[in-house]
């Protein structure tokens, strides 16, 4: 069997199309030289097919291969890892096309194609990306069907038809496998370092930082509550706390000498004291919800105060926030139970208390003086806090997205000179004042609010917010000075506030959509689809699968899953086999015979039995009974006979449609 099985020419088109389609996403994401390479290969192949050029020799191919590897190294600095790997495999895919001669080459090419499809899904995970990959798979399958049918008069289109039918039939099986095949934890750790800088919170806060976020309508996360959602003014999504201030910037910090072990508990090892105290105070009403994070490339997560989770892949930090074990690079969802009352279990002693009171040695003298004055006047901490809020409320402070820049003693300048600021200015100066007055305080950064869409909330970057927490009555209490200045920010959300202020300069992002209700509606729908996609497809992980299967099967045991999988696959396959192998689908009659049969059946329904099956008999019988339809019957008969006896080949689709039109005209004529 030393024959070389060539790739038939009618399969080549699909193969070429499959290569272009599967490479396209990588070409748009990757370095420029990849497009150049593909164009070179396609051009070369086109010339070879027109016999203008020879196929490249071994040396040329080797040089191209080395150049590709070198270019990948140049672009990514390495050859492994998802990005470099995707680039390399896409380039190899193109190169393989250059040396495509035999069927074996085509098989290798198609196998590479499956890998390229997988690399598309590494970086694009929306519903559209999934559809696109199914399209690529259809093209690859059409190529397979083409190379396995080397008959010269095979038609190009039928390959795609075969592929489409088979893919459609494969979909239910794929769905069953998707739902039932148990998800296991990663066997080894692979992180995507898709160093795309994302907008979002950062681990420090200086003036102007949060207000920049408000320019973006990008999604930060979504929340789905079990039962009632809290009202907007209680939706403070805590992400980070800043406890160290250097005069300009607030940063995350922990007391000197403390390590991760003292501040974070991830469910492994003995429970630290602070965690046990919190658990002990775990009582009273709770919010239960699921958060679906957009990739943030950061480890911190967002939740309402005192979040408890199953600590699977996440950890609870001492400052009452959640931290992921690894930066969130893909869609991540987690279930939270927030118990506001559990805050009573928090402690603040020694080094930590000192940190929460620490201020720079010098600077902002006027603010310190004001704090000292309050201290003298109010013995009680809570009275002092109220006085400070009153100060913000009564003095002419303004809430604006574009505060004048301040330098030097930023707190003093803001409190006494400009008095125009955004939430970070208020949070920062309020916390400063509290510390100066001897009340432990810290800045909390996160998001506030969220828009309802269907049964879930969308929290976007422009919901970013900063506020303060002060240590009162043995627990951390939230104080939001922004609410004192601009209460509507908290009640209505940022966009509404800005609109009321007449300062809606937010031309891009979410702002533009508001003016066009239809677009806004479309955007909401798209987001709804995206949410469910995230929740049910991308977020269908171990715990969700477990919950879902529990509802489906009663209890989740290995035997039950295996049995369900077996039964579902077998039943579906049996149904598919009935569909594929049924006799009905292989109707042996030709299209013309079917057309004739349809007319006879229609006439029978109108009470005309035709014992003799010929077109002439039809015409005479119809004309005899309905003289008004004689002309139409003649038209039909002439065309039928033309197609049946005059034509050398099978009638085309257009001719058959024409005949069907004449049949319908004939039937209409009967009614008249």
């Amino acid at each position, binding site marked *: 069997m030393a024959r070389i099985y060539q790739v038939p020419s009618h399969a080549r088109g699909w193969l070429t199309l499959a290569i272009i389609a599967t490479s396209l996403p990588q070409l748009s994401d990757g370095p420029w030289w990849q497009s150049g390479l593909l164009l070179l290969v396609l051009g070369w192949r086109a010339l070879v097919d027109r016999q203008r050029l020879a196929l490249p020799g071994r040396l040329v191919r080797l040089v191209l291969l080395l150049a590709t590897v070198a270019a990948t190294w140049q672009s990514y600095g390495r050859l492994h890892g998802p990005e470099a790997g995707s680039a390399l495999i896409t380039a190899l895919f193109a190169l393989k096309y250059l040396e495509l001669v035999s069927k074996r080459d085509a098989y290798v090419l198609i196998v590479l194609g499956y890998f390229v499809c997988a690399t598309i899904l590494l970086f694009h995970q929306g519903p559209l990306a999934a559809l696109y990959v199914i399209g690529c798979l259809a093209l690859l399958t059409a190529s397979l069907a083409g190379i396995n049918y080397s008959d010269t008069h095979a038609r190009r289109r039928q390959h795609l038809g075969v592929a489409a039918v088979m893919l459609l039939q494969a979909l239910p099986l794929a769905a069953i496998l998707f739902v039932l095949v148990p998800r296991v934890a990663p066997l080894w750790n692979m992180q995507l370092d898709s160093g795309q800088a994302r907008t979002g919170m950062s681990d420090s806060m200086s003036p102007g930082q949060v207000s920049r976020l408000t320019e973006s309508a990008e999604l930060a996360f979504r929340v789905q509550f079990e039962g009632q959602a809290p009202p907007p003014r209680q939706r403070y999504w805590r992400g980070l706390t800043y406890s160290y201030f250097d005069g300009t910037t607030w940063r995350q910090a922990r007391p000197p000498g403390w390590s991760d072990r003292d501040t974070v508990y991830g469910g492994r090892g003995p429970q630290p004291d602070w965690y046990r105290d919190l658990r002990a105070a775990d009582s009273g009403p709770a919010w239960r919800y699921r958060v679906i994070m957009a990739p943030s490339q950061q480890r911190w997560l967002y939740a309402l105060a005192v979040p408890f989770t199953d600590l699977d892949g996440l950890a609870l930090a001492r400052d009452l926030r959640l931290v992921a074990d690894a930066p969130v690079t893909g869609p991540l969802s987690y279930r939270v139970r927030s118990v506001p009352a559990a805050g009573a279990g928090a402690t603040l002693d020694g080094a930590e208390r000192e940190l929460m009171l620490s201020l720079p040695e010098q600077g902002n003298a006027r603010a310190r003086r004001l704090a000292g004055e309050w201290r003298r006047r109010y013995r009680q901490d809570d009275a002092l806090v109220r006085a400070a809020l009153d100060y913000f409320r009564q003095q002419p402070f303004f809430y604006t997205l574009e505060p004048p820049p301040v330098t030097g003693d930023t707190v003093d300048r803001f409190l006494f000179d400009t008095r125009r600021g955004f939430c970070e200015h208020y949070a920062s100066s309020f916390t400063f004042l509290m510390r100066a007055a001897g009340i432990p305080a810290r800045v909390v950064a996160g998001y506030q609010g969220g828009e309802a869409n269907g049964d879930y909330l969308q929290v976007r970057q422009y919901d970013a917010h900063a506020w303060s927490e002060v240590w009162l009555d043995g627990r951390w209490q939230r104080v939001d000075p922004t609410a004192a200045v601009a209460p509507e920010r908290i009640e209505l959300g940022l966009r509404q506030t800005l609109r009321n202020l007449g300062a809606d300069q937010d031309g891009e992002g979410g702002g533009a959509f508001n003016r066009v209700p239809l677009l806004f509606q479309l955007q909401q729908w798209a987001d709804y689809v995206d949410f469910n996609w995230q929740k049910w497809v991308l977020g269908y992980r171990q715990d969700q699968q477990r919950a879902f299967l529990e509802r489906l099967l009663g209890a989740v045991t290995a035997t039950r899953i295996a049995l369900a999988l077996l039964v579902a696959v077998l039943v579906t396959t049996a149904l598919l086999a009935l569909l594929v*192998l049924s006799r009905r689908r292989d109707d042996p009659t030709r299209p013309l015979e079917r057309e004739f049969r349809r007319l006879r059946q229609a006439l029978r329904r109108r009470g005309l039995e035709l014992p003799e099956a010929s077109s002439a008999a039809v015409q005479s019988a119809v004309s005899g009974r309905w003289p008004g339809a004689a002309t139409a019957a003649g038209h039909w008969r002439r065309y039928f006979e033309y197609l049946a006896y005059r034509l050398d080949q099978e009638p085309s689709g257009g001719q058959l449609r024409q005949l069907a039109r004449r049949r319908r005209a004939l039937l209409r004529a009967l009614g008249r």
Partner: protein
Amino acid sequence: MVRNAWQRWLDRRLPRARQVRLDQRGIFILPSGYGYLYLLVAVLLFFGGINYENNLILGLCFLMIGLFVVAILHTYRNLSGLTLRAGGARSGFVGGQGSLEVVLIARRRGHRALWLRWLEQTAQEVSVERNEETGLWLNLPLTRRGARRPPRLRVESRYPLGLLRAWSLVALDQVCLAWPRPQQGAECPARGGDRERRPAPAAQNGSEEFRGLRGYVPGDALTQVDWKGYARGRGLNVKLFDEPASGRLWLRYDLLEGVPVEQRLSILCDWVLQLSRENRPFALWLPGAELPPGQGDEQRRRALDLLARHGEAD
């Protein structure tokens, strides 16, 4: 031992017949080499999906597996319902090749990219569309004289995706005759006529007497056609000659005494060919069989067949 058991099992399951319709009794199906590679890729994607915690890559893997299962059905379907019928046969000499015709009949559906071969032969590819019939001539090497029954015919298909190969081993009840390999003999083992055992090589039609013309019948030697008359528009006729005065020439098996059986037949075969080439009438006598005198292609074929079948029970 195992092979014999396998053959016996096959014979029970797929008995030899003039016409065979492929169904679930006769179709076997297994992944092809590429199919295994495809499954390997799917498994690799599965691990990739697990490790990157990427549900869409897992979905791609599951879709590929679904496609594989669907491909099983479609590959099976491509063979199922195909009818094979034993067609004509072309005999050949031992050492050469005969060929047998297999007629493929597609009733309910088309059958595409079918590979047909006797075991260990080069395959031929053919497609039959619905309601069509196609004849395919398959060569068969002939190693032994006599009626040769072909081995089981392997009908294989990988259409549509090449992931699986479905095949059947069809035993068609057809026979290819292997004529003896011609061997030059020193003397003509003939009796009759002028008792000269060796006819003059230059013996020409002149030594016979022209008797007249009769209408051409298929099987007549073309050398005997009256071409001149045909050119003049008198129709296709055959010139008839009287038997030479010397009488009929009988090729006789028993005149080659002391020569082994196969060699005798080979020598007789050679003479049959030579006499036919010279367009001389001859008759053939074998133990238990006899061919009356005659000439032309038909006579030659009959003589060769008789030689081929010599010694067979039937």
